[in-house]
């Protein structure tokens, strides 16, 4: 394994981890393919080194930073999180990463920065799926400032103690464990502090089906399927016998950010 002396985290779950081959072989990453086994096959030549990230917007420090410069000052942690896809399957993934808030603070966001906006690399040469307009590329995501600063939110650089593979969003991706997986944007090239709620990819493509918040919530159904239960992978016949938890089981850490908010309206 590539990482040494990973800090363990009290936020890690003790639940059974989804096997490595499943985490790296079953991926929703439309930049490669809409077929879940496609990303692992089509990403062999993806170049995630060298990599740089552009930091923009409402902050004192902005500019382009190499991946090393972004990561180096921080201690990598292992975070074993539940991952809940909006399609009602879930995994348990041992991520390696850094709290997003620790990185963002270095850029001294201004008080006008209310949201953080993220963008995935836009390069159809490397992302064959981008040759078709399945989504309006580049992939975009965003978080409210307090969500971005929440200690659960991490930027991941690895999983299962190894650097991220391309199909999992190498070399740098977001992990927001209380939200549906599509919020956890992969292969990030841009982070921008913004004043207004940014436009986000799935919300743009289906505003009635995918909200900006996308908090895991068993009581708010997707228009085409219930979110009450999920398939925890691995699973022999894959029955949905796991009950979905509000905020994916992270209510203690995140519920206060949404107190007084109508979660049905702001889904």
């Amino acid at each position, binding site marked *: 394994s590539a990482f040494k002396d990973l800090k363990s985290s009290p936020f890690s779950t003790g639940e059974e981890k989804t096997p490595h081959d499943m985490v790296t072989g079953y991926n929703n990453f439309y930049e490669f393919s809409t077929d879940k086994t496609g990303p692992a096959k089509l990403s062999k030549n993806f170049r995630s080194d060298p990599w740089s990230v552009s930091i923009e917007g409402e902050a004192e420090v902005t500019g382009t930073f190499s991946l090393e410069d972004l990561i180096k000052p921080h201690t990598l942690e292992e975070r074993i999180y539940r991952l809940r896809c909006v*399609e009602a*399957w879930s995994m348990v993934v041992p991520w390696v990463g850094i709290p997003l808030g620790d990185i963002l603070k270095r850029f001294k966001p201004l008080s006008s920065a209310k949201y953080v906006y993220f963008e995935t690399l836009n390069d159809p040469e490397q992302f064959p799926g981008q040759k078709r307009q399945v*989504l309006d590329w580049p992939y975009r995501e965003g978080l409210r400032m307090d969500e971005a600063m929440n200690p659960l939110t991490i930027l991941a650089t690895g999983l299962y103690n190894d650097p991220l593979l391309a199909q999992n969003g190498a070399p740098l991706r977001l992990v927001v464990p209380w939200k549906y997986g599509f919020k956890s944007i992969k292969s990030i090239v841009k982070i921008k502090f913004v004043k207004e709620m940014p436009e986000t990819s799935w919300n743009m493509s289906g505003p009635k089906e995918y909200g900006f918040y996308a908090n895991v919530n068993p009581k708010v159904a997707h228009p085409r399927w*219930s979110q*009450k239960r999920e398939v925890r*992978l691995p*699973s*022999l*016949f894959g029955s949905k016998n796991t009950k979905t938890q509000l905020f994916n089981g992270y209510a203690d850490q995140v519920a206060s950010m949404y107190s007084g908010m109508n979660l049905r309206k702001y889904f």
Partner: protein
Amino acid sequence: MLKNQHIKIIKPLIFLVALLPLAMVAQGIYMRTLVNPLEGIIHTSGEWALRFLLITLAMTPLKEITGSAHWIKFRRMTGLYALFYASLHFMAWIGLDQLFIVEEIIESIIDRPYILFGTTALLLMIPLGVTSTKGMIRKLGKRWKKLHQLVYPIAILGVVHFVLLVKKDLTEPLIYAAILLALLGWRARLRVAKIRKRHV
């Protein structure tokens, strides 16, 4: 030209080939290469139910175009396979997805048009399966043909079910829609031609 003894070989071959999708899912589950078996079973069975419906609908045009009546001999089998895969699709949804919870099943059918369309299509297929025997064909006479014209609304419901349920990429369901449209269009054209003849 196909001969009767060829049909005797081809029929069991089609029977076996038609089981391959099911065998592949079973192998995926057994070998643990199918990460999400629920999704695998539901997608595969649904896809093949639709494919067999379209194949079944293609037999009459093939007969007319090739001038060989043999095609019709495969029609019962492909039709029954459509029913077989549709039933598997429905049972997997009822059992693995809905865990046999009756209130939730009813709620889903009422709340979600695509489930209502799919369920209706399956229910309509059952009488066609039941009346597919030689005895029933004889017994029903002219009414048999009328009853089995239900295959058209069934296929339309099936394709609409698929179009409504996909998450984003409509390419695949639209291919099915185009094939269905071609198959129905071919029949409509024939019918129009017949009516014209009558009026001349």
